[in-house]
């Protein structure tokens, strides 16, 4: 069972100016980080439960906390995965999704099964690590989510590019 209370409490503690402005001693800063990390664990379960309920599917959801530094083990290893994009704004947004992937050709489909334009960018900084980033534009409704599916194409698939059955819909 999930629980957001520990994260609530950690966030409340972190309202202290020491945590906001960085004026704490190192061991206190380490403890702030510990409280946040421990609070996030049960909250992640809560979010997974909510997503399962909303999407009607009991998936193992993965939260890539290091996406800002282009690290996400699932997208870097899986040949096929789904991307749930949640929009907390009260208006529709179009947003560029960036996911670290291994090199290859990918097929991205929107919630209606239509193929979405995507690019695999090998940036100069990631080239040495055999890592690329998959980019596609996601359209997400107000206060809602969209589920996009991503498939790594084999060389034969890439040539044929046949559309597959539509993935799970979303709202």
């Amino acid at each position, binding site marked *: 069972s999930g629980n957001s209370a520990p994260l609530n409490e950690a966030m409340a503690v972190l309202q202290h100016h020491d945590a*906001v*402005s*960085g*004026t*704490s*001693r*190192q061991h206190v800063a380490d403890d702030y980080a510990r409280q946040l990390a421990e609070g996030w664990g049960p909250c992640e379960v809560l*979010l997974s439960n909510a*997503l*399962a*309920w909303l*999407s*009607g*599917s*009991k*998936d*193992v*959801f*993965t*939260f*890539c906390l290091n*996406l*800002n*530094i282009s690290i*996400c083990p*699932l*997208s870097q290893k*899986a040949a*096929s*995965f*789904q*991307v*749930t*994009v*949640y*929009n*907390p*704004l009260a208006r529709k*947004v*179009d*947003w*560029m*999704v960036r*996911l670290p992937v291994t090199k290859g050709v990918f097929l991205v489909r929107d919630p209606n099964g239509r193929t979405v*334009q*995507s*690019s695999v*960018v090998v*940036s*100069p*900084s990631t080239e040495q690590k055999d890592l690329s980033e998959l*980019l*596609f*534009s*996601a359209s*997400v409704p107000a206060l809602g989510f969209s589920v996009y*599916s991503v498939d790594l194409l084999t060389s034969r698939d890439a040539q044929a590019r046949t559309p597959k059955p539509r*993935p*799970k819909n979303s709202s």
Partner: protein
Amino acid sequence: SHILAIENEYIRATFSPKTGLLVEIENLEKNLVLPVQQAFFWYNASVGDRISSQASGAYIFRPSQQQPLPVRRWAQTQLVKTALVQEVHQNFSAWCSQVVRLYPGQRHLELEWTVGPIPVGDSWGKEVISRFDTSLETDGVFYTDSNGREILERRRDYRPTWNLNQTEPVAGNYYPVNTRIYITDGKVQLTVLTDRSQGGSSVRDGSLELMVHRRLVKDDRRGVGEPLLESGSGAWVRGRHLVLLDTVQTAAAGHRLLAEKEVLAPQVVLSQGGGAPYNLR
């Protein structure tokens, strides 16, 4: 010798072929062109001087001199262009780099900077800033927000409610920036949105700066009892500045909507798919 530029239907950003630095932003929709030189600098942190023994520390920002030093006067650049993104990768030094990015349909320029670990082997505390220098005649005035709510006018070397005797020409003009800072000449406005709270200022007319990272070697004796110096090699910081060039009349609509999108950004969750159907029972 070729002009290095990225552009979409709304924005064009031009970089100097000699230095690799951003030198001009153009709003193609409104026909606005603004020479903007953006680069990274660092203030040498004070360890105390003749006037005051106050050192720069976790609580106190006190540079030893008014002029910051450039991290480097030029950047090694690489250009990436695909149908969905255009990027200029700028490498200033082993501890300072940046990606300037444009997506199709985007009305702002995205600057993703990576700074750290700041070297302090020379025993000099360093406070790193990203600075935008323009030709705008701002007359000592700039604007910062207060928790994303009010935008407050800040006037250099001035406080609205008392006669200020300015003793710190740089730090005394620094203000909190929660989500945005901007300068304007009454016609054109250059706005920079931040992805986190930072300190910012306009130390000279037409200039705008934000502090992105700092690493100090001396405690400021304000209660922490240790210098702002991470153990080990030091911290890496990565963040984003979103830059908007607009007319004064329409700038607010642009930065308010964009700031909402930044603060309440979409969240991404991945799954393998093919899970069992779920119902409440």
